[in-house]
């Protein structure tokens, strides 16, 4: 069982203390965040205990503005002397830098004093013995999965983690709120071997509520299936082909889109979707929807680190950009309003108004091409949109996956790729803040060495 040492009231008091300390040192505007977290993590491999970990984290971060001069300081000690020192350092630092007229606290009118808090906390309440036993169950489930003769599997790591945290935000503009949250996870990493060839893959389940986690059997089955399916993988000839990005990894494309629609990229003029507000960047059946308030959402919250609430909105509507991801500074620089995204995007859903069915239906629609189920590395140029990845997956012929593929690259220009999305599947998969179905795009470059 995880017992956090400080309740929300104490954390709010610490954040307020930091604000007061900085205010006492000069004519400044201040915001302070106090955070505490605790968790346990157990891993097991092939029936043997591997690691038993207890985490305890804490911090106070103070940000000070002296008429547009910004200084930040943080401390992992919550003692009053440490907080006083952090406040002093933040004030001193702000006194030494130049003025950024756009830097400052959020505009008072945008502060979310009373937006309802989405539910985020659900402590598992499990003991060391219970969590440890669950890690052994996770391992046993993965060890016990049925596989074809001639294939050997081994559990590289089976694990369970459970953590709780609290965070309070106070500002010199009178904002003072706090909330609690939980995170729980189960995972299995499995190595499969056949005829001297090895493959490793992982499956995991991550939730705010312990009871929402997938069963150990389900996680185990997925990990084993994924590792085994890659055995016998081979490369392809260099060619242009259609690519179906499996829902499990398609959110990686979204990450770059979110970056390009972010305030910093926009005001620095380094975005591949520069000045795209009101312009069509995707086909007209595509929407990108944001919802900060989903109960127990992995990226839900009532307000961001500046105290500004996000909103339920369409960031991309019928393929047209309707908004950026802005904090207060970026908003001022762009003469816009903060969208409450100082901590990044809230829960996002990338969908088609004409979803093409599940993955099998999408494979059938693609006919011939590559189903990508893994990205192993690569890079996006955020300015030009040049996009290349090392990847793996399955070659599809006549609408059916025929053999596993590895040792290939895929490449394109992200601007063309997003503009050229054929369809998005209804096989929605959630990865952190992102939820999307499988994404089909025609005519991308495959590099291979058969």
């Amino acid at each position, binding site marked *: 069982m995880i017992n956090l040492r400080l309740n929300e009231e104490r954390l709010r008091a610490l954040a307020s203390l930091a604000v007061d300390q900085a205010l006492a040192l000069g004519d400044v505007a201040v915001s302070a965040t106090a955070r505490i977290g605790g968790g346990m993590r157990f891993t097991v491999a092939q029936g043997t205990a591997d690691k*038993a970990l207890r985490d305890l984290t804490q911090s106070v971060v103070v940000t000070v503005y002296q008429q547009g001069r*910004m200084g930040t300081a943080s*401390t*992992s000690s919550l003692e009053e002397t440490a907080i006083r020192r952090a406040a002093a350092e933040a004030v001193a630092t702000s006194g030494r830098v130049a003025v950024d007229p756009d830097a400052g606290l959020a505009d008072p009118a945008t502060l979310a004093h009373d937006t309802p808090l989405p539910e985020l906390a659900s402590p598992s309440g499990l003991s060391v013995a219970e969590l440890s036993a669950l890690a052994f169950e996770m391992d046993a489930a993965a060890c016990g999965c049925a596989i074809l003769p001639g294939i050997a599997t081994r559990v590289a790591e089976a694990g369970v983690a459970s953590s709780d945290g609290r965070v309070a935000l106070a500002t010199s503009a009178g904002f003072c709120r706090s909330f609690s949250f939980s995170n729980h996870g189960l995972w299995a990493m499995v190595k499969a071997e056949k005829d001297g060839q090895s493959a490793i893959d992982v499956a995991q389940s991550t939730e705010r509520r312990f009871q929402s986690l997938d069963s150990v059997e389900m996680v185990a089955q997925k990990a084993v299936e994924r590792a085994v399916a890659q055995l016998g993988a081979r490369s392809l000839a260099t060619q242009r082909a259609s690519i179906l990005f499996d829902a499990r990894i398609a959110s990686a494309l979204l990450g770059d889109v979110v970056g390009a629609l972010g305030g910093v990229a926009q005001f620095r003029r380094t975005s591949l979707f520069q000045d795209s507000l009101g312009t069509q960047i995707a086909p007209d059946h595509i929407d990108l929807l944001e919802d900060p308030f989903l109960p127990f959402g992995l990226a839900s919250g009532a307000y961001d680190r500046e105290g500004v609430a996000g909103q339920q909105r369409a960031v991309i509507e019928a393929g047209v950009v309707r908004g950026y991801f802005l904090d207060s500074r970026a908003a001022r620089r762009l003469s816009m309003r903060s969208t409450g995204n100082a901590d990044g995007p809230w829960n996002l859903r990338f969908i088609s108004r004409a979803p093409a069915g599940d993955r099998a239906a999408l494979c059938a629609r693609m006919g011939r091409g590559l189903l990508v189920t893994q990205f192993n590395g*690569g890079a996006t140029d955020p300015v030009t949109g040049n996009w290349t990845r090392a990847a793996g997956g399955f070659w599809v012929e006549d609408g059916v996956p025929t053999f596993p593929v590895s040792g290939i690259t895929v490449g394109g220009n992200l601007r063309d790729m997003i503009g050229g999305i054929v369809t998005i599947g209804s096989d929605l998969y959630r990865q952190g803040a992102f939820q999307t179905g499988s994404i089909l795009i025609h005519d991308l470059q495959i590099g291979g060495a058969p």
Partner: protein
Amino acid sequence: MTAMDTPAQGHSLQCAEQRLLAPHDIDLTDIARTLGALQGPGIDLADLFLESVHSRTWRMEDGKVAAGSFRIDQGVGARAASGADVAFAHSADMHPGALADLATTVSGLRRSSCGSSIVPLTTTPPHHTVYPPDYVVKEGDAADWISLLDRVDQVGRGADPRVIRVDAFIRATDQVILVADIAGRLAADVRPTVQMMVEVVALANGRRARGSAGMGGRHALADLTPARVDETVRKAVQMALTNLEARPAPAGVMPVVLAPGYAGVLFHEAVGHGLEGDHHRKRLSVFDGRMGERIAAPGVTVIDDGSLPGKLGSLGIDDEGVPGERTLLIEDGILTGLMQDRLNAGLMNDKPTGNGRRQSYAHLPMPRMTNTFLAAGQHDPAEILASVRNGIYAPGFGGGQVDIVSGRFNFSTTEAWLIEDGKLTAPLEGATLIGVGHEALKQISMIGNDLALDNGIALCGKQGQSVDVGVGQPTIRIDSMLVGGRGG
């Protein structure tokens, strides 16, 4: 108990006592008692790691240093291992009671009770000269840092009218550690790090392009000399201007020439991770069981060396108190060595190699690289370039990754050129290069005499933990490698 009578590491221990112990009313007796509490039946390895990090960053955005930050992170990690079964807890609270709580928590994780002995702390490693044990985060030095950043902006914008934006930051970090274990070993280290990163945006004919460069190491601000700063900025400018003209990189198998320095990330990925002891103990590495075998062409020698003075990946002592050292990983094409921490060395009947590293007190140590590089060969770099009829030349790289089970690695270019008839003819957009470690090594046919380490900008991630590392190599020719560009 008092401090050592004749501490071999006098100054570092003194710094550790001043920053980690005295302000928190902790003394070495508390450490000895906590180690005793961690010790119990079946415990082979137990240690305490105390850490304090002070870090200061100045950020220049479009010509103005308008933001600065300061960070203090400190805490204690306590570990106890029985065989491969490890229990670990950490705390950001530092006082004698917090140490006792940690020992209780670790015992609780093991579902056993605390020991009651006191571990005498008797041995310390020798003094090292890998970097000076000096603090680089000082009060009142803002003006020096800010004027350096102003210089970055001037040099960047002055270099070419197409440069429209220069952003940069400088970060100075002091890390002080104290590590003590149940074998009675006590060690301390003071690790200064200074880093600068520059990003340049250039614009011509409506097209924008980016270039970036950085420098850093375990040294003082004074080592960021104007000449080195100017060189770094010009490198970023050059990359941005080159990329303004870049065309899509080709896709397919071709000869590749890698420039000296950061391209050595190839050896970090293709060789290094697969030779970390934990991956061998768990029999996950593609190199498992191949010690003593030829895995590369003759002439290929790969080294991990934590004892290089002032380099970003260097360690006077590692995070388990083991002196940083030079480890031959591949000698003339033969697989010769692994990188070990205490836990894995103990379990594999091997010796620790000064590679036991952790991101912080809140993380467990594991075998990690320090500075990893391919040793110099005989070839003139110009001769290597001239030898390629059709291929690519890559002087700039971003990150890389490896799957240690298959040995399949990749890394991505940030600056690359087409080679035609031995000459650089056209700049190329980014491409992802991939290969399988032991196969790629066999394709190395020419090794230059111009070994260089990267400029101190490499960061390595493993199992969620980041540590600073160095990578390096001379100019090399790889006869056949899959280049994954977006062009046909």
